């Protein structure tokens, strides 16, 4: 993106000056106490106050790019894309959001840009699970092994999701290729405007992917799926491969005889958290729900579901604070109020963020509900 004016034009954000409908649903606007931020206000700053002010505005980094605004927008404004453009320009002037977790995730992503780096990341493959070097299907693992190491204390599902995915794929007769030196897909770097790192990661990944004989890519991370399917072709190059989140693959697979009924009788009622990149971005709402019902569970929907789903509160490992925590608390309260025994999501970041909110000492008891990834739940039924 060359200039803010160009982004204002291409993303149609001038419509925001006469509207502001999205302020009522923006997860940041709703919970902002100190100061005020809304999509409309950011556009006003960009148009009215000039380039310098918007690039220096700390509120620029609060947007979760969750696309909730786009769902309610009457004027087809591409607000998330506008934010991404402006962040890219702001990065060029050395502005950035505040990294969470002491910046370790951004750091390991930057380290992965080095094409000579040789990782040691395949230790997670459990005995008995089959991978291949010649399959037409590639399983893109994402940062799961790293999240396992980084968030051990939160008791998250990390590589167990990857193993579950392999178990399911093997069950379908697929022995996927797994890349020995897969890099972070660069999703967070792209949405934070760090295009140098994003391009570096994408180029190494694309090279590694093209070296395989795969014709399609399966992921268990909605962000990886979106990035490989849309961001790579738009910015770096097209692998020409079909990209699917695992739930999309399962929706079009013949599951008869594969998934028996509910084996865990202690869990009957469940609720489902739509990840932004799978729901509002990719439009996959029913496939995960059909799979859950196929497992024999009753779905109790939260007040905000499908297109109106609430974001898990944080994105891109950046700018996490009290506003984000309030979103997480609200979401967990919604999940609990459904009376469900289990909160299912299809994105490991949703799980990390919500479990992080649960780990706080003050509301500990109030927010407790088991959280599982759909992948591991399905694998349990095989």
């Amino acid at each position, binding site marked *: 993106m060359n200039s803010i004016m160009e982004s204002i034009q291409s993303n149609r954000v001038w419509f925001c000056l006469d509207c502001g409908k999205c302020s009522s649903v923006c997860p940041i606007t709703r919970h902002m106490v100190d100061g005020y931020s809304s999509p409309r206000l950011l556009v006003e700053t960009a148009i009215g106050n000039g380039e310098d002010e918007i690039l220096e505005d700390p509120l620029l980094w609060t947007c979760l790019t969750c696309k909730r605004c786009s769902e309610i927008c009457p004027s087809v404004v591409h607000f998330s894309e506008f934010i991404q453009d402006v962040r890219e320009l702001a990065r060029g002037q050395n502005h950035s959001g505040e990294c969470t*977790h002491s910046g370790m995730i951004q750091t*390991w992503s930057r380290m992965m840009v080095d094409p000579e780096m040789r990782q040691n990341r395949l230790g997670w493959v459990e005995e008995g699970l089959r991978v291949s070097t010649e399959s037409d299907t590639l399983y893109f693992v994402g940062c799961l092994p790293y999240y396992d190491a980084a968030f051990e204390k939160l008791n998250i599902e990390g590589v167990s999701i990857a193993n579950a995915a392999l178990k399911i794929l093997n069950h379908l007769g697929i022995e996927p290729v797994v890349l020995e030196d897969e890099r972070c897909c660069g999703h967070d770097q792209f949405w934070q405007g760090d295009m140098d790192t994003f391009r570096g990661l994408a180029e190494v990944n694309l090279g590694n992917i093209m070296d395989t004989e795969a014709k399609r890519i399966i992921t268990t991370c909605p962000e990886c799926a979106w990035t490989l399917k849309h961001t790579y072709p738009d910015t770096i190059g097209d692998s020409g491969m079909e990209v699917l989140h695992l739930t999309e693959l399962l929706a079009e697979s013949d599951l008869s005889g594969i998934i028996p009924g509910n084996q865990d009788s202690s869990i009957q009622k469940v609720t489902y958290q739509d990840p932004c990149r799978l729901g509002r971005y990719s439009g996959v709402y029913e496939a995960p729900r059909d799979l859950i019902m196929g497992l024999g569970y009753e779905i109790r929907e939260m007040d905000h579901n499908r297109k109106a789903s609430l974001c898990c509160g944080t994105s891109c490992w950046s700018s996490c604070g009290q506003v984000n925590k309030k979103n997480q608390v609200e979401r967990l309260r919604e999940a609990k109020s459904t009376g469900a025994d289990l909160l299912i999501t299809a994105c490991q970041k949703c799980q990390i963020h919500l479990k992080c909110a649960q780990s706080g000492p003050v509301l500990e008891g109030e927010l407790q509900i088991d959280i599982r990834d759909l992948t591991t739940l399905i694998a349990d039924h095989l």
Partner: protein
Amino acid sequence: MDSKIILFTCNWNAYSGLEAAGTERMSYSPMVYPIRLSCLGRITPGIILKAFEKGADGVYLLGCSESECHYQTGSHQVEEVYLESQNLLTLLGYGKNQLQLDFIPTGDGASFVEKVENFVNGIQDLQSDK
């Protein structure tokens, strides 16, 4: 072969050991760049990874034993960070020896020099094996 080694010390046992080594005119490798923290418990995996990102060949964490920590929980905290960082560095393809955690008695210059030199030798061996 030249190495770049980042040494994080706490303000207490480890740094007093470093100062004692200085006043006793003991020498240690010039490849070591010491950085003093108030307590090693303030280190994070992000800072450790950053050192490697910027080209460090090894990161050495030197502090107080658990019973001597001036902030009671610092030694325990750095132990957790150390293990988490080890796991991340292993995934990133680094060797276990490239990040080490140890402690010395307060003001013990000889012990400081000995431990630092051992760490440096370990890094140098690793590089000559490559």
